[in-house]
């Protein structure tokens, strides 16, 4: 068994999406020491892979990257990436977290991020950061602005040719590296484990993820990102510039048949945002949003929606019954309009985006910290009218989507609240 690294901090933050980053920064800037544990190889969460944010259309990475850099350089923040929290135990006023650092198969202290290993590696893999649309190598740095800029090797895809080790100028490839245990002691825990989306395979009616031109909204984000997989908006089946794009709203929310009866709160707005961005990238494309209701509830959201309508984006109030495809992989959407004619009709598009719903990213009840969950697996607050961060577990606070679907401004605000509550709790110990 390898040596157990021990870390002591005032607060442990689980997750480093925008909520986790903000909570950690707010605590550290008040003088508290923070340890962040992130399961992915880079901090930044989902937000770092978005193209822009609504309703301002600010560049998402321009907002996230400075926070990522601040966290990684902060003297009072210790960040463990590519690490999992296996268990958290409470003893008196102290939490002890058992963490496993997964092996990257490199010497992290010696690596100079030169990417030579990635250049020479001969094996290409689907790149999950690009939602499988792009390729990466068996050893690769997760994405351009990842922090830390360290490669990860996937041994199950390694053909053991040794090319990476032969080219590494610092001799830091370690094929035999093993998981390393870490123990973190903290006085408070902030849960910021975020969300996952309902799977593309959730609904048989929408193609079970097997239609190449029916994509997820995260894939659409990557298509719109300046450094996306194709460098422009193309459809995945054949690299065609799509002339007709449709959004199927509530494709993973407000649907009891898949166990997600609630509204995911962000789908209307990200669909409108993507539609606006697409109309900028593809000025002659027809863009249609099939919706049940448009929920534009935040500051400036209604104006954003009205702007989209004024730009010529076609909003059709209709529930999509099913999505199929023709022989050329053009998605065919069967709808019944809820306004005007009520006869079902089939409409052909080049590309369809399914607005997936948001589900909890992690079952935090496994930690047994006393933080209750609601019926859908999100963290239940002890009293929402009193605090937006305090859970039923003493010293356990929640930030961001771990409490339920919410947008980026709300997640950032929540994170500030969680940091304040945690600071107040630690001070009283």
């Amino acid at each position, binding site marked *: 068994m390898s040596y157990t690294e021990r870390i002591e901090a005032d607060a442990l933050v689980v997750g480093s999406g925008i909520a986790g980053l903000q909570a950690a920064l707010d605590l550290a800037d008040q003088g508290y020491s923070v340890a962040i544990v992130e399961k992915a190889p880079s901090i930044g969460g989902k937000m770092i892979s978005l193209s822009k944010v609504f309703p301002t259309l600010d560049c998402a990475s321009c907002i996230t990257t400075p926070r990522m850099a601040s966290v990684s350089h902060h003297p009072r923040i210790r960040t463990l990436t590519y690490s999992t929290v296996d268990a958290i135990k409470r003893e008196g006023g102290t939490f002890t977290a058992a963490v496993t650092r997964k092996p990257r198969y490199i010497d992290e202290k010696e690596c100079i991020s030169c990417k030579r290993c990635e250049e020479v590696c001969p*094996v290409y893999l689907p790149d999950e950061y690009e939602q499988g649309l792009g*390729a990466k190598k068996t050893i690769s740095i997760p994405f351009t602005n990842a922090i830390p800029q360290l490669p990860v090797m996937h041994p199950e895809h390694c*053909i053991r040719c*040794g090319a990476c080790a032969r080219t*590494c100028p610092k001799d830091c490839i370690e094929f*035999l590296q093993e998981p390393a245990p870490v123990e973190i002691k903290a006085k408070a825990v902030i849960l910021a484990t975020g969300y996952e989306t309902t799977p593309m395979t959730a609904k048989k009616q929408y193609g079970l993820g097997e239609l190449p031109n029916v994509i997820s909204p995260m894939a659409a984000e990557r298509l719109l990102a300046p450094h996306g997989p194709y460098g422009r908006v193309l459809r995945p089946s054949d*690299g065609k*510039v799509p002339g007709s794009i449709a959004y199927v709203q509530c494709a993973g929310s407000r649907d009891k048949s898949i166990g997600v009866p609630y509204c995911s709160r962000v789908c209307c707005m990200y669909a409108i945002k993507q539609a606006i961005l697409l109309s900028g990238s593809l000025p002659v494309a027809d863009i249609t949003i099939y919706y049940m209701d448009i929920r534009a509830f935040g500051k400036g959201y209604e104006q954003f929606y009205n702007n989209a309508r004024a730009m010529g984006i076609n909003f059709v109030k209709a529930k999509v019954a099913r999505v199929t495809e023709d022989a050329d992989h053009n998605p065919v959407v069967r709808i019944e309009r809820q306004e005007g004619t009520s006869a079902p009709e089939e409409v052909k598009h080049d590309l369809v985006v399914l607005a997936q719903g948001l589900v909890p990213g992690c079952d935090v009840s496994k930690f047994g910290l006393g933080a209750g969950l609601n019926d859908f697996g999100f963290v239940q607050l002890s009293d929402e009218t009193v605090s937006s961060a305090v859970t039923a577990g003493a010293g356990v606070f929640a930030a961001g989507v771990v409490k339920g679907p919410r947008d980026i401004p709300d997640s950032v605000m929540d994170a500030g609240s969680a940091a304040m509550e945690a600071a107040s709790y630690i001070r009283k110990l």
Partner: protein
Amino acid sequence: MADAKKLAEQLKKLNELRGPVPQALRDQVAAQNKAQKAILDALKGGPKTAPELAAAAGLPADKALWYLVGLRKYGKIADVAGRGDYPKYELKAGEAK
């Protein structure tokens, strides 16, 4: 640069621990190399679209596009400026030989 003897020892130990490289992975890499070579060879004749490259390489169009974007990411091929439903790709300078 890794010491050749040390690297050989590491790889030998890795083979002992994990067994040989699975045949499925070897086949996948062989298919990848063949597809990429076919795409690069087809581009020696001038810029082509993804469906044209798929036809030339005998691949499904989605698979050809995936290999194409991988080669593009790692600097073997580049976009050709222009309009049309299907963008064209070309070999990057120095990749033609």
